[in-house]
């Protein structure tokens, strides 16, 4: 479908596509096998200026927005979504600073993210606080000019690889979700260490680790927003970044469809290409319909955010749910079209199927997203009365 992207957006997409084709695709299977972090590819992305596409020019970025970021994620994800999420998670870690940081904080941390010199990461989830973010146990206690952090964040994408971490911690247990605050923590701060690298089902090129804080002292200037705003910082950040997960899911789905379509045209059974069978044709058509619908919703949502809409929680959740559910379904179908070959690691679709699953789970499970969507709908309806 023609989405009438601007010339700059097309340039960004084509550049990301070129990098995905030339630098990511050839090593995707190997990265999946070894779980090696794709620094080499991230350096190419940095040198090509793609790390800062969503960052304003005054902080060294290209001045685009969520749509530009999504275009890059989608293209990278077609080749390897483990690489794509390593790129996207830096956005997740830096958006809290872009949205809530002071001018000093932005000047200090954002330019190195924009240039790709530093990666960022976001620490919210804990062992006992997943969907129930309010059950968080990591604490930050004020001590003069510092805060002292204690606790462990779990499953943090880019953990250990990133230099800049935005972390949510409890500053006042009595206030519930209004007792959380957001902080910037630099790698190398005494008392800040990392757990072991998780061994994952998919997105294996990305690194997932615990962030461990043991009497970690950080200057009070590293508080993001005000004390008690942690939950709002997290929610507003996730509203902006969920489209990135949708883009990741969309990339996986598009990659799987392309692979399945090519395979169906080449694979011959009963004396003809399997693409000539209606059973296969209808599967391919359904895959394409779902992907295009997910893309249309994603691009519309990204444009809505970039155009300055005030509240986009609902749309952001919708595009994430749709794209990730589509990715799961489409990749399962792609494996089916490949038949036995699809189950083998020699072909790319089993990896895509494994990679797709996480998009239904992280940055808020699809069940939590549906809660958000329904609550927003009910709020809107109540307002009309």
């Amino acid at each position: 479908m023609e989405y009438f992207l601007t010339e700059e957006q097309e340039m960004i997409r084509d550049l990301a596509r070129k990098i995905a084709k030339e630098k990511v695709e050839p090593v995707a299977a190997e990265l999946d096998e070894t779980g090696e972090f794709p620094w080499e590819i991230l350096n190419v992305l940095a040198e090509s200026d793609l790390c800062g596409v969503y960052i304003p020019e005054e902080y060294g970025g290209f001045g685009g927005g969520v749509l530009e970021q999504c275009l890059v994620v989608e293209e990278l994800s077609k080749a390897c979504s483990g690489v794509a999420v390593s790129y996207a998670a830096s956005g997740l870690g830096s958006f809290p600073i872009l949205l809530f940081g002071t001018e000093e904080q932005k000047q200090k941390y954002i330019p190195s993210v924009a240039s790709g010199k530093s990666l960022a990461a976001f620490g919210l989830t804990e062992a006992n606080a997943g969907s129930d973010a309010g059950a968080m146990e990591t604490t930050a206690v004020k001590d003069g000019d510092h805060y002292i952090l204690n606790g462990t964040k779990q499953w943090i994408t880019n953990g250990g690889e990133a230099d800049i971490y935005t972390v949510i911690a409890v500053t006042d247990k009595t206030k519930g979700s209004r007792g959380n605050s957001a902080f910037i923590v630099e790698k190398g701060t005494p008392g800040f260490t990392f757990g072991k690298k998780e061994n994952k089902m998919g997105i294996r090129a990305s690194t997932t680790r615990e962030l461990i804080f043991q009497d970690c002292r950080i200057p009070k200037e590293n508080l993001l927003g005000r004390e008690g705003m942690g939950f709002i910082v997290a929610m507003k950040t996730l509203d902006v970044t969920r489209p990135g997960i949708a883009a990741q899911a969309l990339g996986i789905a598009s990659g799987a469809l392309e692979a399945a379509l090519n395979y169906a045209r080449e694979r011959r059974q009963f004396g003809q290409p399997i693409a000539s069978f209606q059973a296969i044709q209808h599967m391919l058509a359904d895959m394409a319909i779902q992907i295009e619908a997910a893309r249309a919703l994603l691009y519309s949502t990204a444009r809505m955010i970039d155009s300055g809409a005030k509240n986009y929680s609902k749309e952001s959740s919708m595009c994430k749910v749709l794209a990730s559910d589509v990715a799961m379904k489409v990749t399962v179908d792609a494996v089916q079209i490949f038949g036995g070959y699809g189950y083998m690691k020699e072909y790319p679709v089993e990896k895509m199927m494994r990679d797709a699953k996480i998009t239904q789970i992280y940055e808020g499970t699809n069940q939590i997203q549906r809660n958000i969507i329904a609550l927003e709908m009910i709020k809107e309806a109540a307002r009309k009365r």
Partner: protein
Amino acid sequence: MNVIVCVKQVPDPAEAKIDKETKTIVREGVTNITNPFDMYGIEEGVRIKEKNGGKVTAVSMGPPQSEKCLREAIAMGADEAILVSDRALAGSDTLVTATALAAAIDKVGDYHLIICGREAIDGDTGQTGPGIAERLGIPHVTYVQKIREISEDKMIVERMIEDGYQVIEVKLPALITVVKDINEPRIPSLRGMMKAKKANIITMNAQDLSLDPDNLGLKGSPTQVIRQFTPEIVRKGEVLEGEPTEQAAVLVSKLLQTRVV
């Protein structure tokens, strides 16, 4: 240190076809790309600039759409670009092309080094680079795989030969043609692409270069392409019989016989 890199636009080999009737390369409706070997030339030129300062000027000869490969050179880091374009130059062979490019380079002047790709993947002659050097009266080294040292007045390079390489010292200004072992061309940056989009490409025609109108294009070219064709591939297959071990023995003896191994 000022470097000139010569680039040529060629049909994308992934799409290139030969017209069965006319036996010529079909150029209509085919995506054009920068000659892959020239990409190594651009990269090397930009690396020399990044290390030693100066500027890189990309030069191409071809129809107006060749502008695209000059913009690609700018996106990768070239500072200026010149397109030699004139209907009168259509059908030029390597001799006329070298003459025209040499005239354009002479007009630019003030250069230390000219870099060309080893050959263009459409014509495969590898003659234009040396031809330019001859017209300009400067030395040239073909098939350079590495620049060991470079200063304002001389350079030491490795020239790839069949079983190894030669180390050659050459006075500057000089021309080199490069092979793909020399570097890995960078992917252009967004900022480079923005710059390339806005860049002014200087266009020169035969008159600007004071070229002799009687010696241009097809009629000024001593080389004439009589016919182009896709050779018929005649493959004779042989199926080996017997147990795998017997088959392996037969295969090895056949490979030895045919001197494949």
